[in-house]
């Protein structure tokens, strides 16, 4: 059906495109490796001791920024995931007026350029006299994460078979029991995916943070500030560490998802036979 040469064009192109996507990641790895050589002479750039030493360099500025980013990311993720999940459940499971207006309203923060979100919050904090610090960053991050959480969880709620909950009610489960024993466990993968997405968005956000951080440093802000005089290799080491960690998380989620699907399939077959 296909010509033999044209069969290979698309796979070859895709491999090349993916390879180019990887270049800056590889570069960041190699660069951190090379620079630590320069300052440490040894080739063991990625050992645990080296990582502990990262925090001693520059009076711990890199690690402080890094810690701030993690703290902000965790708090904003908890807040946004809670608020967003509640909205997602309500939107799929209940009827109410103005739902299309609500859809639009929830879409708008995602459709607004970050620079506008950042400038808007800065203007608001300025006009009501709120000093910019850790709290204003958390408030800002929670805001832009909510809509993404709604999207991720909503898809999961919509794919949930209502028959399962009906079965629970038929077996005289109370509303709370049905929610805790059936709805919530089934939604959990969606909620976790939303939380991961939200943490990633918060952790890597620079544009909105820059407008609302005052003197507080975050990891991206640290890189921005030191870009003028050269990024220390420690930043590359930390970024590479985050990359590896994120990769492990994603692969684990994918693999466990595949295993789960297989298990469900087996259960399904057992039920049919």
């Amino acid at each position, binding site marked *: 059906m296909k010509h033999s040469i044209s069969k290979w064009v698309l796979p070859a*192109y*895709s491999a090349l*495109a*993916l390879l180019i*996507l990887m270049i*800056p*990641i590889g*570069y*960041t790895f190699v660069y951190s490796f090379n620079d630590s050589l320069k300052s440490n002479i040894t080739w063991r750039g990625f050992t645990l001791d080296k990582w502990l030493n990262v925090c001693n360099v520059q009076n711990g500025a890199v690690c402080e920024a890094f810690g701030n980013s993690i703290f902000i990311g965790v708090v904003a993720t908890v807040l946004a995931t809670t608020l967003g999940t*509640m*909205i997602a459940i309500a*939107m*799929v*499971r*209940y009827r109410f007026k103005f739902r*299309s*207006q*609500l859809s*639009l*309203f*929830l*879409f*708008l*923060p995602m*459709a*607004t*350029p*970050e*620079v*506008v979100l950042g*400038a*808007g919050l800065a*203007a*608001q904090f*300025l006009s009501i006299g709120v000093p910019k610090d850790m709290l204003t960053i958390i408030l*800002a991050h*929670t805001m832009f994460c*909510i809509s993404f959480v709604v*999207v*991720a969880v909503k*898809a999961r709620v*919509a*794919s949930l078979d209502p028959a399962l909950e009906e079965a629970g009610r038929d077996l005289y489960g109370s509303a709370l029991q049905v929610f805790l024993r059936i709805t919530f466990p089934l939604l959990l993968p*969606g909620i976790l*995916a*939303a939380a*991961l997405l939200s943490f990633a968005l918060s952790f890597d956000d*620079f*544009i909105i943070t820059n*407008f609302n951080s005052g003197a507080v440093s975050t990891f*991206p802000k640290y*890189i*921005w500030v030191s870009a003028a005089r050269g990024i220390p290799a420690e930043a*590359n080491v930390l970024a*590479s560490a985050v*990359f590896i960690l*994120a990769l492990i998380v*994603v692969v684990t*989620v994918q693999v466990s998802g*595949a295993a789960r699907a297989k298990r469900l399939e087996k259960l399904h077959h057992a039920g049919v036979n």
Partner: protein
Amino acid sequence: MAFAAFSTTAAPSSSDSIKKKSPVALLLLLPGILYLVLFFLAPLVSLLLTSFKVPAEFGDIGEFSYAFRWENYTDVISAYWPHILRSFGYAITATFFALIISYPLAYFIGVKARRWPLLQSLALVMVVAPFFISFLLRTLAWKQIFSDESFLVTSLKAMSLLAPDAHVTGTAFSVIFGLTYNFIPFMTLPLYTTLERLDVRYLEAGSDLYASPFHVFRKVTIPLSMPGIVAGTLLTFIPAAGDYINASREFLGGTGTQMMGNVIEANFLVLQNFPAGAALSIILMSAILVMVSFYVKKSGTEDLL
């Protein structure tokens, strides 16, 4: 999976029959909506109010009082029109290239790689992998790769493919390249989600009816993947138009490549000319809203989320 976040076509919603009216809905919705009213809607209003402010009498730099000075808008347009044009020009170009580059890739992952789920997952992980490394660091990596002393640039010059005194960083090319690179995942993921659901039997039907492969692609594949194209275009264009990292002088830009985001940032954080920054933000936001409303008209509001 998190990828679902980038899909516009919502999963088939559960039938309306099980949807019920209940005060519980209000309890679930209220906290989140209230939060967004306070920290999304109210800031937009205060941005609008700020954009009309005038310098306070006897005030310091950065002190402004409420007024209705609409000339703030004509002032920023006459001062920053090149930045405004550049923002949209760069963003449109980057979106175009991202679409051209992403479509075949998404088609391969979503349609051709269906028979090999492992390959499909691996390719998807590679598409989102740039998200896991800092946006700023991966942009800086390109800056190093394109710097005058870099292997790439020196060898291009040695081969006379580049003029000896030419620079790559600080040019429109490097800014557009950076924007395209950074937002390709935002284009590829929604394209992938629609193409992955593409029923190949439609394509077979097309070729059974003696349509050429090109004709099938134009008449069947493209229309069926339209939701992904529209979503990817918006998800790429919006952040690209407002970006100020790629165009910044410390990253891939130069003095002649500054975009709207750069001047909004400068007016807010350096010059403390908040009304000018606010007016520019409102102009950017309005342009985006026009685009989004076209989109809403086209695809309806229920599919937005």
